[in-house]
């Protein structure tokens, strides 16, 4: 028996400038079914859903709702067609109750005074038809009074005194009960858990009569119990005839809840299959496709020794859940460690936690500073620190004898340091947890971080290239003035060596194209000769040439014995460039594989694996 079609997409194409987000996508969703839309980052699933919900408008193709062609130009249009989308980032007013948020902006039926007047007049005519004169006056008076009261009734309705009248509260509770939501409608949003907020968003959409619901990564922020409850609710909705589209990357959930699965890859629709008739392996293959040979060089790591040890690191997210959950791994100097995973699974928090920008809940970040047999300098250690460390046996003389500074005069110690006579006995081992970026720098640890947000974090968009070079180094020197000479030289070097296209070194960086912005940012981070270089999505949005330039830069750093962490979304790149690949899923390490031997399907499976 064929179920009626709720929504159908035909040949949908959407382009943003050069990037083709969706190409000739065909999709059908039936009434009373749950469809999962599966795909990696950048496969176009969010763009596609945004077109159904009215945030974008397709460049080509048509959308049909219940068989009729429709134009969805805004979220309000989508409402009219009974389509409701629940986004990953909730749109709720914190200080309001759940009920207030649900009824906010609801279009009240228009109460027309003229219509009502007509009706009353008709009634009056009827009554007056066969009645004596004296009675007529009485009747007329009665009806006139009714007509007179109309404007006030309209005013009252317009303001809807007591908007949470018994009717409203009842209606909302009915919806909640019908689908099995457990929610206290009079609770304030800021008091709610993420799962409760999500429930409010779903009821909001149902209250407006949505028949087609789109959920964007709904389980990303839920606990296993909450996921189970959500799925129960979704099943009830399906039984009542609603169509539900879930954007997800979690294969086990796809298998559990959906009736059919649509797989997208690089903007195209690969296939839609019945969940019953497929398995995780097959879906992964469709999701990641065949391996593409990228021709990226991968020099062998030379003498890799541990540089950074992450031990049982846990970082909490804003909503109180665990963004990074008990993560442990080691990265060696002179290697590139790739971090693969669907974005939003803790990569951002992990890197920011290591860099000191995020508070860590528990665990250690152990840094091995390769200082063995290197002289200590006043550049990053004070006299006091050196004396302390000497006491603890950190140093030895070039001839091997242990350094003992007790009883020495200040001038003598200074002479020894300046003549490079005091050497580290071993690599310095420092725990970076709970340290701010400034503290890390002051310890002499050179850790560079190329963040995902280039213009709002890594750089200041309105400042010139030269001034952006200053960001890390402006504190140097005792003068109260900022020294722009060295940064200018650095800027010019970067512009020259990395072929940055810019009118001058004084141009504000926001005027540069994406690739050039990234060259400036990466150039600066590399210029400080880091021991650890972390880069989050460094080639996202970059053209081919700039991307390869970045790969070369990373390889150069690798050969200088830098430990490089590369968070990326393109599996082909990761497999070609990285020596080892760590896969992260839901904040946990699901596996570490060798780059040379990694299989794309294997990585895909690891990316979507969640613990039961």
């Amino acid at each position, binding site marked *: 028996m064929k179920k009626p079609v709720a929504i159908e997409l035909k040949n949908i194409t959407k382009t943003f400038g050069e990037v083709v987000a969706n190409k000739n996508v065909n999709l059908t969703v039936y009434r009373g079914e749950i469809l999962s839309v599966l795909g990696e980052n950048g496969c176009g699933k969010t763009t596609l859903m945004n077109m159904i919900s009215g945030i974008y408008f397709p460049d080509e193709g048509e959308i049909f709702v219940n068989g009729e062609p429709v*134009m969805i130009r805004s979220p309000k249009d989508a409402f009219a067609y009974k389509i409701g989308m629940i986004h990953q980032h909730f749109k709720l007013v914190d200080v309001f109750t759940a009920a207030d948020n649900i009824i906010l902006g609801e279009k009240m039926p228009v109460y027309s005074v003229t219509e009502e007047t007509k009706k009353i007049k008709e009634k009056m005519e009827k009554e007056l038809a066969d009645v004596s004169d004296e009675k007529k006056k009485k009747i007329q008076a009665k009806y006139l009074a009714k007509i007179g009261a109309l404007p006030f009734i309209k005013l009252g309705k317009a303001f809807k005194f007591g908007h949470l009248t018994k009717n409203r509260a009842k209606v909302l509770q009915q919806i909640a009960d019908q689908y099995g939501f457990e929610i206290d409608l009079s609770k304030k949003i800021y008091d709610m858990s993420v799962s409760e907020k999500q429930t409010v968003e779903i009821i909001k959409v149902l209250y407006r009569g949505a028949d087609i619901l789109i959920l964007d990564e709904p389980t990303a922020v839920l606990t296993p119990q909450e996921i189970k409850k959500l799925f129960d609710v979704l099943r009830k909705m399906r039984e009542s005839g609603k169509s539900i589209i879930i954007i997800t990357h979690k294969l086990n959930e796809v298998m559990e809840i959906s009736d059919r699965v649509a797989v997208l890859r690089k903007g195209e629709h690969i296939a839609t299959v019945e969940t019953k008739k497929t398995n995780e392996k097959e879906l992964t293959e469709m999701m990641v496709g065949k391996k593409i040979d990228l021709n990226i060089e991968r020099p062998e790591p030379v003498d890799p020794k541990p540089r950074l040890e992450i031990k049982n690191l846990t970082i909490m997210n804003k909503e109180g859940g665990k963004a990074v959950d008990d993560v442990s791994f080691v990265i060696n100097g002179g290697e590139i460690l790739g971090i693969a995973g669907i974005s939003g699974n803790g990569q951002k928090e992990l890197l920011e936690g290591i860099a000191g920008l995020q508070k860590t809940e528990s665990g250690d970040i152990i840094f091995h500073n390769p200082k063995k047999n290197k002289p200590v300098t006043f550049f990053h250690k004070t006299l006091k620190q050196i004396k302390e460390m000497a006491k603890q046996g950190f140093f030895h003389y070039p001839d091997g004898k242990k350094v003992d500074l007790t009883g020495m005069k200040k001038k003598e110690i200074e002479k020894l340091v300046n003549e490079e006579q005091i050497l580290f006995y071993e690599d310095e081992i420092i725990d970076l947890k709970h340290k701010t*970026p400034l503290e890390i720098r002051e310890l002499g640890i050179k850790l560079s971080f190329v963040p995902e*947000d280039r213009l709002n974090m890594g750089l*200041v968009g309105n*400042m010139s290239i030269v001034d952006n070079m200053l*960001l890390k180094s*402006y504190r140097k020197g005792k003068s109260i003035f*900022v020294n722009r000479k060295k940064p200018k030289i650095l800027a010019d070097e970067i512009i020259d060596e990395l072929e940055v296209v810019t009118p001058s070194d004084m141009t504000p960086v926001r005027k540069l194209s994406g690739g050039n912005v990234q060259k400036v940012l990466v150039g600066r981070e590399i210029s400080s000769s880091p021991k650890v270089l972390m880069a989050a999505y460094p080639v996202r949005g970059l053209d081919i040439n700039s991307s390869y330039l970045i790969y070369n830069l990373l390889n150069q750093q690798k050969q200088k014995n830098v430990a490089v962490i590369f968070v990326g979304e393109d599996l082909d790149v990761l497999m070609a460039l990285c020596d080892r690949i760590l896969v992260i899923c839901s904040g946990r390490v699901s596996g570490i594989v060798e780059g040379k031997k990694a299989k794309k399907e294997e990585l895909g499976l690891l990316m979507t694996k969640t613990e039961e």
Partner: protein
Amino acid sequence: MNEKMKKEPLVHIIKRADIPQWKSWVIRIGAGVIGLLLCAGFSCIFSKDFGGFFAELFNGAFGTERRIWMLFQNIAILLGIAIALTPAFKMHFWNIGAEGQTLVGCLAGAACVFYWGGEIPEGALLVLMLVCSMIASVIWAVIPAIFKALFNTNETLFTLMMNYVAAALVSLCISIWVTSGSGVLGILNFGHLPKIMNQQYFLNIIIVVLITLFMFFYLRYSKHGYEISVVGESTNTAKYIGIYVKKVIIRTMIVSGLFCGIMGWILVAGTNFTVYADIVGGRGFTAILVSWLAHFNPFGMILTAFLVVFMQQGAAQVNTVYQLGPSAFENIIVGIFLLCIIACEFFINYQVKFRVKNKNATPEKKEKKTTESAEREEKA
């Protein structure tokens, strides 16, 4: 498909990514001209002399040597306070308490004269006044900053209220000092800044010029100034490079306070030689406009301060010549002029596009025209 196409909105507003310098100046000058025309029009209603308006405007500012000195003195005061505000504004800390901060500076200076005038040498007195003014203003400025840093208390409202506490404080002190109950302190005989070339205001102007230069170098070339820029542009980036934003807020307000203190000192020791609740006269508020209109550029503020004072003195002259009435007239003229200049910033930041009937024709953005029509609307 076309029949179903909804109508494009009549007017489209897009945020501009960039605008060439000359264009933005054309818009500003255009707005200034429109403002002047409107002012002349308004004055014409009462004076029946349109052209004369402009002549008297200039006359009021440059007519006599005395007026020119007044012009530069008033510009100096206004500019000085605006400079004091600038570091805070650059950091997006909306300090609207300059009126009160300057006022307590005046009060502290006057207090020094009241208690020690005549008992210590004049030079020492002046130095003491300066130090006390600066301390008082810093205290007034830093209290809201601390609360903002610790508890995220709204700084706009806090600094606003502090203004009125300051005014009451001044009246309080005067009522204690002036036992006669007249409520007027009267000219103090000590603590006068020296005249240069027999002009009382010369020194004031020199001090403010120095302040302006200092602030320019401080903001552009010092490490503090760099941090202020970064915090103001992007707090994310500031945190990324390890700037402790709360510390910077407090430090910057201390700087603001120091300069307000200097201005308070200039007002008491170099201009009025007394103190009263209205001594700052609203210039603390006007300075906010002066700073904002110049996009927080110290040299730009010289221009905006000049414009404001020019209009004020000019309007006063127009008022006197045509005997239009109470001095409130100047406020109307300055108000109209400033509203035009403020409004034109919109056209610099945003682009207005009109709906086209034919989809193929490219919409021509008529900026000048919209400026005029919008301002004509609002002045109707």
